[in-house]
């Protein structure tokens, strides 16, 4: 066995230029599988992270008739917490918080823009919605006199900076018009296009002054130990809140974005497949040329007692070795890159802004900091696929080589 492995290696080195070119196609194919999978899985995780960290937590409860999308944030039927629900929340969650979403107009001089306002509890909001990726210019307001925090897109639209003041106009819970002049405490880039283009953050005391909800809220979000427990927790919370509320999970809310990822995944798989077919053709061609060039050697080995299966084994081994070396090189490069970018991350903020994708992605929460997914199983699968493609593609030329009559083959 070792003898034939050595013979295969020597034969491959005999035409190292051609062998290298064939292996490059395997390297590229394996690299595309690992990087593509790493990127798509990273994007997938980014969407999930964006959904959980900025939008819903693991579970969110909201009024039963609340619209599922858009800038409509009705204030008629808001939620309240009873003691039993509060106790369940304190016992069964890592953290929970209330939010009041409303849709005011922010007016600056002659300019005005309708926004989504998130009224947050300064004490509890970060228990569910971390701010690690936030880039804040100024301060995060906590009281009604601190004012509001504008996301960067709105600040840019209205040409506002920290220290400026704006008028916030909104309907109250009772339906009256209300307006307050408030300072801009700061501007923020959260790294989430679904937030950064149209949201202002309003501390709950100021939100209450604007909306007058009488202690009620529109959203109750919570964080669990494991995100996989979200369905179960949502069901329990639903039974506690009754018919006036509906619960949703990160998984339900992120589903549209994840479906888009599935399409991207399929597209990428097709590209990887096409590259591997090219690799297969390259290897088949290399082995076939070797088979034609070495007819006399094949005849000699047959004369020395090598069987047809032995000849096939020799050529298939050459394909296998090419596939193995190419796959290992491709996997090593892919593993290094995915490992590097799984830790370091790729900041896509400027890219998203440049292509104007933030407008398109307003309903698609994801973090613009992309961390590739480093997966040992994907690396192993990519190596197996690369080796299998190379080995299988050498079968036909191996059959051609082994089918030669030894008496004819010895004469070349």
């Amino acid at each position, binding site marked *: 066995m070792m*003898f034939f492995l050595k*013979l295969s290696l020597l034969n491959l080195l005999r035409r190292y230029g051609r062998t290298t070119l064939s292996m490059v196609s395997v390297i590229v194919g394996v690299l595309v599988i690992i990087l593509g999978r790493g990127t798509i899985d990273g994007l997938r995780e980014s969407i999930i992270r964006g959904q959980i960290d900025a939008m819903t937590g693991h579970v969110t409860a909201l009024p039963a008739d609340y619209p599922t999308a858009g800038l409509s944030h009705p204030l008629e039927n808001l939620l309240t917490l009873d003691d039993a629900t509060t106790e369940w929340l304190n016992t069964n969650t890592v953290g929970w918080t209330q939010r009041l979403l409303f849709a005011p107009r922010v007016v600056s001089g002659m300019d005005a823009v309708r926004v989504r306002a998130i009224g947050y509890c300064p004490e509890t909001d970060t228990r569910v919605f971390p701010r690690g990726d936030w880039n804040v210019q100024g301060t995060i307001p906590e009281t009604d006199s601190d004012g509001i925090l504008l996301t960067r897109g709105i600040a840019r639209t209205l040409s506002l900076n920290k220290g400026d003041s704006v008028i916030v106009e909104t309907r109250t819970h009772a339906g009256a018009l209300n307006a307050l002049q408030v300072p801009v405490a700061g501007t923020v880039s959260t790294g989430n296009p679904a937030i950064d283009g149209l949201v202002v953050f309003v501390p709950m005391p100021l939100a209450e002054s604007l909306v007058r909800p009488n202690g009620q809220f529109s959203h109750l979000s919570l964080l669990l130990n494991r995100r996989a427990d979200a369905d179960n927790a949502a069901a329990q919370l639903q039974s506690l809140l009754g018919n006036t509320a509906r619960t949703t999970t990160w998984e339900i809310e992120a589903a549209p974005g994840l479906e888009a990822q599935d399409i991207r995944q399929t597209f990428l798989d097709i590209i990887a497949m096409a590259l591997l077919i090219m690799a297969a053709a390259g290897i088949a061609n290399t082995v076939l040329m070797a088979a034609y060039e070495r007819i006399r*050697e094949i005849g000699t080995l*047959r*004369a*020395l*007692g090598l*069987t047809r299966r032995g000849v096939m084994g020799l050529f298939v081994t050459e394909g296998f070795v090419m596939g193995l070396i190419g796959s290992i090189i491709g996997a090593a490069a892919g593993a290094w890159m995915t490992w590097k970018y799984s830790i370091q991350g790729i900041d896509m903020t400027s890219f998203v802004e440049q292509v104007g994708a933030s407008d398109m992605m307003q309903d698609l929460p994801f973090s613009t900091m992309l961390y590739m997914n480093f997966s040992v199983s994907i690396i192993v699968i990519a190596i197996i696929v690369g080796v299998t493609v190379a080995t299988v593609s050498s079968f036909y030329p191996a059959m051609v080589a082994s089918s030669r009559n030894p*008496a004819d083959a*010895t004469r070349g």
Partner: protein
Amino acid sequence: MNGGFLIAKCDVIDVSKLYGSGVAEVRALDAVSLEIDTGEFTVISGPSGSGKTTLLNLIGCLDTPTAGTILLEDTDISSLGERALARVRARRIGFVFQSFNLIPVLSALENVETALHLAHTEGNRREKAAEMLEAVGLKDQMKRRPTQMSGGQQQRIAVARALVKNPALVIADEPTANLDTATGAQVLDVMRTMNQKRGVTFLFSTHDPRVMERASRIVSLRDGRVEDDRKVEKPVGAANSGPSSQE
């Protein structure tokens, strides 16, 4: 003394070989019968197309006859399947080709070792291969690749490769055709010595008079039939009238 080598007795009985069919049918061999005895240094001669190579291919298990029987040490090789023929080739028959047919990526030693690998020979293969190369006068050339060696040296590697597995029979198809006179004579002397010292049976196909003058028997073919079959009383280079095993 035969050095532990197997001794061949090959019977070719009424063997025919046809190629093609219908109007394109060619009868390469036509009811050839031949008995090759132990330790013979036999030449099959004849013009091109007479059937020399076809006969050697059939005896060498590289091809199968259309009709007739070939017995090698009482085994009917004409009825064997592909794998069994390969096994016979691996263990009992050595080949020397006109164009040497060495594996260019392997050293002289590895080329000889290949025959032992394929014959699944027990023991230290490298040592056996080295001994055989020494016996054909290539002791100092073992690590060199065929492309770094002369034609005569390459053919001596081929002889060593044919003999290293202790075959019953060595088949040599025009072994001197690609060699100059002096080198061809040297290679023939090596084979004659092996024939005499170890009693190995050699079967040549050739037009080369240098080979024929060393042969102990000359079989002439014409149009696929045996035209003449004669023993040579005093072949050139023969220390005695027969191989040492019969001494």
